[in-house]
């Protein structure tokens, strides 16, 4: 593994530690935001798939 990649992994781990140390309500708010984003992506993907399906008919 290159030193740059190793450093990136160290930074990622440090970020996870910082996130874990946040107060619980703050972490819950992050989960809620991620959940909303994931649902929007899912809805967009579903409508795109539906469009593709209608094209293929």
């Amino acid at each position, binding site marked *: 593994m290159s030193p740059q990649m190793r450093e990136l992994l160290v930074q990622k781990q440090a970020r996870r530690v910082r996130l874990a140390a946040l107060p*619980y309500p703050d972490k819950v708010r*992050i989960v809620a935001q991620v959940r909303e984003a994931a649902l929007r992506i899912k809805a967009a993907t579903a409508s795109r798939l539906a469009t593709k399906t209608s094209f293929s008919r």
Partner: protein
Amino acid sequence: MRETISEINALRKAGVIGQSAIGGAMGATFYLEPVTTFDLDIFVLFGGAPLILTLSPIYEFLKSRGHAAEGDAIMIHGWPVQFLPAETPLLREAVNEALEIDFEGVPARVMTSEHLMAVALQTGRPKDFTRLLAFVESKVADAARLDEILARHRLTDAWQRFEQRYLSNP
């Protein structure tokens, strides 16, 4: 989620459920970095019957307060909440020994990190092992307490298999 927890507390106050605790991904999030999840798992003890056959009293109570069922969960102030009977000895212990916390002025209960780990090990799906690895890496759990729980619930062998598979150096 403050309002969601308030409604769960109302269930307890009305005697619909016994003691309860947050488990699953939202429970793990108390100790770890935020984890992606779509629902809030509430493990519930029921005072009377050892095993309740239906969760309909919970749903009826919450529907009367304006919350709608959505699939296998019930939507409470924007959070899909899944009520799960604490029907194994491990889950009952996890609920009874949950940590009392204050969530922005509202009392809540979260399973201890050691119980969350034991439950994940017992459940044994790939995502449970992922969560278990995150717990191991974070070192938030008390190893002696975890060992006691694993031994009490006959999970020591399962833990050793997990260690051999995921934690031993090649």
